[in-house]
Every structure is written in structure tokens, then in C-alpha cells.
């Protein structure tokens, strides 16, 4: 049908369904954020899961990763792996050095003083 090599691209129907799914997932994440699951951590996890599902839909269908040569997906996934390493090592570091971070946020006055000192 078309002559640029990667001819196996989805149809407009598929694109419309993906958009519909993205909008529904948006509605889902908005309503889920209003529910009390007992711990705020659960809300964060649910929001990030739904966001990741949406991002996957965009990458696989709109960005054609599902239909393209695998090299593009390999490149992108590698980037995400390094982002995960970045996040995990920062979290490990941050969580294991409690005492080093000055607790300067107890009062609004201290915040202003700390901010001024840091700016100079």
C-alpha cells in the first residue's frame, strides 16, 4: 500500500481506541486519587501504575514501538533502566544519611533564614 518500508502500522480505528483508553485511564486516575486506601503510599503507587499504563499505550501504538524494528524499543528501554538505576541509588543514598540533611523546616521563620543562607 505504501512504500516506506515499515508498512505494518495500525489503522485509524486502533488509534481511536488507544485515545479512548487514554482518556478513560485519565478519568480512572482522577477518581482513584480521591479514594482513601488507608495509606497515601497506595495512592502514589496506583497513580504511577496508571500513568505507566498510559505511557506504554503511547509508546507501543502512537510511537509504533510495537510495529517497528526492536532496536528502537531496546534503546528506549535501556534509557528507562538507567533512569531506574538513577532513582534507586539516589533513594538508597538519601534514606541512609538522615543526619546529614539539616532539619531546617520546623518553622516558617527558619525556612526563610535557611533559604537566604543557601542563596548567598
Amino acid at each position, binding site marked *: *500500500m505504501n512504500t516506506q*518500508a515499515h508498512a505494518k502500522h495500525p489503522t485509524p480505528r486502533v*488509534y481511536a481506541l488507544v*485515545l479512548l483508553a487514554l482518556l478513560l485511564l485519565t478519568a480512572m486516575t482522577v477518581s482513584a486519587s480521591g479514594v482513601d486506601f488507608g495509606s497515601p503510599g497506595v495512592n502514589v503507587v496506583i497513580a504511577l501504575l496508571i500513568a505507566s499504563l498510559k505511557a506504554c499505550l503511547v509508546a507501543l501504538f502512537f*510511537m509504533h514501538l510495537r510495529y517497528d524494528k526492536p532496536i528502537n524499543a531496546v534503546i528506549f528501554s535501556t534509557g528507562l533502566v538507567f533512569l531506574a538505576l538513577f532513582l534507586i541509588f539516589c533513594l538508597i543514598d538519601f534514606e541512609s544519611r538522615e543526619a546529614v540533611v539539616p532539619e531546617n*523546616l520546623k518553622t516558617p521563620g527558619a525556612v526563610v533564614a535557611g*533559604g537566604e543562607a543557601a542563596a548567598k
Partner: protein
Amino acid sequence: MTPSTNTLDPHAHPHPTGLQHHFADMEQQADASKIGMWLFLVTEVLLFGGLFVGFALMQGRHHEAFLAAHHHLDRSLGILNTVVLLTSSWTMVMAVHSAQQGERKRLIVYLALTLVFACAFLGVKYLEYSHKFHEGLLPGKYYSHRGDTVPGQFMFFSFYFMMTGLHGLHIVAGMAAISWVLRRAMRGDFSGAYYTPVEIVGLYWHLVDMIWIYLFPLLYLIG
């Protein structure tokens, strides 16, 4: 390599439109462009990644301040912008599809629609920013909002402005790229055999959309 490259007969068209001399055929050229774009997108992910990691660390440590601060954001404007940007991603992918089918008029219409949605996104962002400027909800030492019960809310707005600001710059850059592709489409540069620039700009636009997909719940919904 798929056998479909044979559709470009090198004898009938010794220099197919858009094929540069250092590539063997259109497929190789398109693949090279796409790999390059994906590599660039990875650097973009890591650029935003720094901000996301910073947000995660500070949100974890100052959870109450972030929670209190995020109530200053207008959730319905955030939802509106999410819908606008998701729809613009759809018009963009339809533009790529039209280019693929060699439908020049539809390609132009979808690209123009994408630009309209991008403008709408920036318009809503302008409303939100001006509201925050007015209230003194500004980053770092410029934070001057009165009557806070939880200290440290300026940190949320530091992240808010850096993340949405950088994202907004990407929207502007994307609009420039779409305008460039639109101009070329109107000039008749693209056909079913050559539309790589449309596809590449599409990839960029979808990445900008993807980043917003994460920004929206983190900033507007859970703080």
C-alpha cells in the same frame, strides 16, 4: 531487512525524492533517522529524570508540605490540559498515518489541529501560571504566599515551575517542529514513500505527551 524495499525500483528512479546518497535505500535512511531520534528521546528522558528523582526524594521527605502545596493547583485545569495533550497526540499520529497514505490534505489538517491543541495547552498553562504569580506561589526564595499552615511549600513550587516550565519549553519546541513539518507538507515535500520528518516530529511530540502523563498525577493529584 524486509523485502518490501523492492517497491522502490532503483532503475526507474535512480534518485528517489528525499533519499540521500549515503544511504542504500529509503528503508535504511528511515531506520537511521528513527534510531537517532530514539537516542535523543533517551537523553530527554534522563533530562526530565533528574527532576523526577529530585521530586521523589523531596516529596518523600517533606510529604506534608507537598500535600498542602498541591491543593493550590487547579485540578480541573490539569485534567483539561491532560485531555488536550492526549488528543493532540492522537491528531499527531493521524498526521503520520495520513502522510503514510500519501494524503496531503489530511496531513495538513491534522498537523494544524495538533498546533491548535498545543496552543490551547499553553493558553491553559498561562492561566495557571498567572494565578500562581498573583498568589505569590513562586519557587524558592520568591515564594511569598501568606497564611500557610505547613512550612516548606516553596519546595513544591520550585519543582512545579521547573518541571512544567521545562515541559512547556518542550511544547514550544514541538510547535516549532510541527510548524516546520507543516510548511514542508504544504510545499508538497512528502509522499507515501518519504515522510520521515513527520514521523520523527511525531515521536518527539508523543514523548512530550508521555512526560505530561507522569507530571499530571504527581503534581495535581497526589502532590
